[in-house]
């Protein structure tokens, strides 16, 4: 039997519990992708219920369908052009009045079947809010279902109703819509008639709705009409202009403003009929929490504590699984070593792929924990408070408090961070945030600091790493100010941001959240980092025929011969220690050979070619090679250093530490290298994200060039400054 299918779109305000509901409906069978052409996340899932294939699409959370932000444009276009069978509007029952704004706009579209889900019904009840669903259903002529998303209640009924609605051939009712004041209704009617006359049967939209949008001067609809209707489209727009002018004269204000006012007036009328609030004052827990968390004196200390705790969790707690993974990789590497015959392929596998990817996968625990913490911040509602606290400071850089969120995420990984700039409404804010987010040191850079600071500043490593992060933040602030007053002048976006009530996060959605983002990291590993590791290995393994400065083979033979004579003459007791000494001497020679081999490889040659550029900031050819390889992915820097310093086990940081200490690297050079790392051009994955999010090659190249120049300048100042102060 062929199953019937229906498309159901979920619409709703941010914080209405839409995502929780979506997660509960689709479970883990969801696909996360992008909406075509734009970079807003698109989530969809297919489920089988009641004999139907249901395709559920999670529209971006919006407060209205006025096309200001990308999210709103995406949501509206989907409904208008893809015509889903049913749109479920998820309404936060404890916040009915504002939620109804989107709801009335959805109703006004008049092009699809709408179903209301009064979500968080329990929360509303606990606040003493009573909603008469039957009345609401009758007033707006829409089926209404109560749901409690986080307790999985009402979802079955919701889906059943949606199927029922999708299958009914009921024409979308025309009667119960927003009624505007007489003058506006008059203009709507006139314009609607005019459109009916001129549309030539090819009109795209419901004519009343189109008339309303034209009176609101909706640019997207105007363009679409011109495209589709051709010449008479111009006449329609002219007529709309006339009506707009009339209304502006009449109300002394823009029609879109008057209509927004009137829509709310209409909503107030509905609220009066369907909602009763018991007057008894209740303890508002969320408000009490906020008394502390955004308190004038406690707000910032608590905020800083949370951030500190997040980084502590990430790095101290993450250290244990890191050790397990480390030993796992060593074991794997050792067993492969034993299994495979010596060949070039084995070298590629062990020294290139296993060593390269291994040194990256080890950070998976850190990344999982970090994203888990960020998910907690988002799902509890604390992220909005962070933006509230930080807005004044962000505003000084010329940014929105919301920009703080992507910048904070930049400490995890720049790729999702830059994607998170989509929440910003103004294009300029978005570009500015994208330009300065890479200065937030991502977690992939951390191992570099851990190795360098741990080696050269052992006791003060924590302080040094903190200072490095601080330099990054300071650079971001100063660059932000610079760009805002030069390249990206303009009015700031309004800071109209909802502070949603605090919620206990659901473990399921935290895990989905965490997994979505960690998947990006894993994908990066499978693709970019694997390729990067192979390239780096190839560059360092070729050319194969190198003429060495000394004959290492004969040196080894000589050592063996020397010890052999000692061995035969010595007594039984010293044999062991002699053997050990011999092995140490041999491995020293082998190490020197390996180092020379890399020095003479393509990699070494590239590094040496760049050396003149890097030597003023105290970085030798090995450092330059490592930094160049960091363009592929920052995680590779450490593994490249490992290969270049010819330590035996690349993934084992202790060996690299010893090798670094034995090299001629100084502590000021280490400092300079760390500063360079935090500021210089972001990794390939980030660059491609910047390209995608700004949609401009110019900004991408600018970002790469600017960050590298700044990095060099600051590293130069620090290196030369340290040397002048005699810090070695």
């Amino acid at each position: 039997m062929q199953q019937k299918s229906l498309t159901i779109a979920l619409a709703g305000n941010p914080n209405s519990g839409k995502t929780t509901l979506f997660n509960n409906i689709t479970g883990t069978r969801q696909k996360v992708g992008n909406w075509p052409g734009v970079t807003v996340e698109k989530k969809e899932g297919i489920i089988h219920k009641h004999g139907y294939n249901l395709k559920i699409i999670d529209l971006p959370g919006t407060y209205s369908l006025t096309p200001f932000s990308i999210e709103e444009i995406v949501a509206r276009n989907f409904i208008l052009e893809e015509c889903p069978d049913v749109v479920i509007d998820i309404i936060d029952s404890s916040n009915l009045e504002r939620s109804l704004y989107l709801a009335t706009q959805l109703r006004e579209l008049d092009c699809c079947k709408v179903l209301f889900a009064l979500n968080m019904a329990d929360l509303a009840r606990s606040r003493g809010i009573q909603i008469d669903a039957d009345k609401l259903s009758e007033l707006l002529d829409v089926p209404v279902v109560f749901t409690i998303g986080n307790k999985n209640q009402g979802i079955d009924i919701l889906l059943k109703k949606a199927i029922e609605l999708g299958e009914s051939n009921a024409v979308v009712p025309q009667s119960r819509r927003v009624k505007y004041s007489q003058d506006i209704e008059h203009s709507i009617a006139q314009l609607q008639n005019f459109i009916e006359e001129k549309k030539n049967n090819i009109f795209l939209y419901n004519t009343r709705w189109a008339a309303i949008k034209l009176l609101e001067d909706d640019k997207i609809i105007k363009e679409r009409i011109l495209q589709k209707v051709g010449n008479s489209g111009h006449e329609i727009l002219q007529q709309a202009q006339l009506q707009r002018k009339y209304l502006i004269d009449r109300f002394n204000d823009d029609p879109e403003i008057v209509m927004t006012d009137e829509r709310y007036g209409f909503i107030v009328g509905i609220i009066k009929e369907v909602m009763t609030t018991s007057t008894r004052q209740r303890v508002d827990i969320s408000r009490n929490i906020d008394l502390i968390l955004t308190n004038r004196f406690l707000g910032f200390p608590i905020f800083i504590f949370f951030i500190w705790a997040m980084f502590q969790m990430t790095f101290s707690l993450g250290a244990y699984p890191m050790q397990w993974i480390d030993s796992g990789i060593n074991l794997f590497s050792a067993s492969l070593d034993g299994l495979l015959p010596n060949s070039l392929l084995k070298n590629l596998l062990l020294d290139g792929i296993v060593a390269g990817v291994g040194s990256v996968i080890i950070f998976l625990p850190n990344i999982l924990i970090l994203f888990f913490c960020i998910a907690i911040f988002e799902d509890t509602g604390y992220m909005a408070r962070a933006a509230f606290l930080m807005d004044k400071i962000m505003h000084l850089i010329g940014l929105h408090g919301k920009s703080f969120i992507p910048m904070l995420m930049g400490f995890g990984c720049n790729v999702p961070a830059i994607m998170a700039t989509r929440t910003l409404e103004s294009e300029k804010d978005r570009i500015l945030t994208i330009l300065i987010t890479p200065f937030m040191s991502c977690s992939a850079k951390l191992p570099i600091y851990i190795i360098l600071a741990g080696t050269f500043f052992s006791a003060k490593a924590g302080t040094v790493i903190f200072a490095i992060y601080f330099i990054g933040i300071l650079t971001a602030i100063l660059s932000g100010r610079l760009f805002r007053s030069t390249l990206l002048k303009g009015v700031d976006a309004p800071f109209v941001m909802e502070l949603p009530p605090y919620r206990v996060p659901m473990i399921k959605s935290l895990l989905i959240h965490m997994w979505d983002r960690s998947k990006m990291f894993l994908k990066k590993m499978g693709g970019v980092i694997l390729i990067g590791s192979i390239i780096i290995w190839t560059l360092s393994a070729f050319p194969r025929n190198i003429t060495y400065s000394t004959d290492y083979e004969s040196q080894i033979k000589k050592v063996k011969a020397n010890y052999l004579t000692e061995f035969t003459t010595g007594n039984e007791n010293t044999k062991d220690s002699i053997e050990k000494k011999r092995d140490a001497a041999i491995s020293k020679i082998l190490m020197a050979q390996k180092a020379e081999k890399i020095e003479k490889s393509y990699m070494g040659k590239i590094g040496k070619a760049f050396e003149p550029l890097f030597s003023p900031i105290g970085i030798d050819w090995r450092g330059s090679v490592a930094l160049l390889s960091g363009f592929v992915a920052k995680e590779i820097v450490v593994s490249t250093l490992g290969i270049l310093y010819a330590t035996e086990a690349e993934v084992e940081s202790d060996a690299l530490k010893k090798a670094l200490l034995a090299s001629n690297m100084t502590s000021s050079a280490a400092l300079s290298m760390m500063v360079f790392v935090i500021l210089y051009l972001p990794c390939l994955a980030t660059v491609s994200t910047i390209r995608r999010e700004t949609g401009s090659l110019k900004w991408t190249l600018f970002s790469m060039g600017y960050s590298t120049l700044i990095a060099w300048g600051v590293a130069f100042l620090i290196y030369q400054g340290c040397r002048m102060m005699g810090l070695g």
Partner: protein
Amino acid sequence: MLLSEMKEGQKGRIVQVGGTGALRRRILEMGIVKDAEIYVEKYAPLRDPMELIVKGYHVSLRVEEAACITIDDIR
């Protein structure tokens, strides 16, 4: 008086929402409309932005934006 001049814990009724263009419409769409009751919950630790309660939910607004909104004080 202006919304930006209100103190913590003060309540008012919106008389007029000024400002221009997209910003003004965005403010209106969030329910900060004429005749709505508005309560100043608090100012952020750095005195900007401010947290308001309107139509039963909490929303934040910068002081400079609040300066576009005229209020009738309700005691």
